[in-house]
């Protein structure tokens, strides 16, 4: 019997094997959203815990990785929703200070961009973060969020329109 089927029947050894082969990928998905490595580790465990509890509902004919990514997205989004504001400016800027580039905007410009990004509605911001910042393919985003390709494109379009308007209003132009 294959691993996924054994997992769906509650086999702990199968779960351990799947855990070890998918933990890195789940962690990467979560850290891209929450942008906090320590929190991402806790949320990775939470993701697998939920998967384990829902094992009987897993359809072993479908992709285990895709199912897991969907759970991970929900876990990460719930975590962010509990925070006020949902994505903290310091988390958005976390990786900015670690890599310097000649085209780095000034502190004030960066603050304006971060604030404009924060103002996006949550469902649009999540897609924008993955599509525009992390450059994840639209199809992958759709699969992880349970959205059609056109719904992902619509949210990216809305994000671009709102960001452009807000940045323009505050005198920041690409």
């Amino acid at each position, binding site marked *: 019997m294959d691993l996924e089927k054994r997992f769906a029947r509650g086999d702990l050894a199968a779960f351990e094997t799947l855990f070890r082969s998918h933990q890195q990928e789940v962690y*990467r998905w979560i850290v891209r959203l929450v942008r906090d490595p320590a929190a991402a580790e806790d949320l*990775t465990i939470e993701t*697998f*815990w939920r998967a384990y*509890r829902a094992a009987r509902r897993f359809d072993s004919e479908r992709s285990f990785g895709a199912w897991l990514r969907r759970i991970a997205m929900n876990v990460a989004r719930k975590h962010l929703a509990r925070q006020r504001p949902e994505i903290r400016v310091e988390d958005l800027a976390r*990786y*900015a200070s*670690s*890599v310097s580039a000649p085209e780095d905007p000034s502190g004030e410009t960066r603050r304006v961009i971060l604030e404009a990004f924060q103002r996006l509605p949550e469902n649009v911001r999540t897609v924008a973060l993955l599509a525009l*910042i992390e450059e994840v393919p639209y199809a992958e985003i759709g699969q992880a969020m349970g959205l059609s390709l056109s719904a992902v494109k619509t949210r990216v379009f809305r994000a671009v329109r709102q960001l452009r308007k807000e940045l323009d209003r505050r005198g920041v132009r690409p």
Partner: protein
Amino acid sequence: MNAKDDELGQLLRSAIRPVPDVELSQDLWPRMLTRMHRTGRLWSSWDWAAVAAGGTVAAAFPEAFSLLFYAL
């Protein structure tokens, strides 16, 4: 995305850096096991829903259970 959107994307990525290819600092399986042992295999919301549905049926149609036991 068109060229203008690309420029906007670049501006965004200059302020909000993409997360680099991060690796887990440790294998999380031992923590997973601790979590599982601590909490135990709890009932899922579906399990609770099934119990609630059974309880509702039992309260509304108690005679259904005598029929069920008779059939068994």
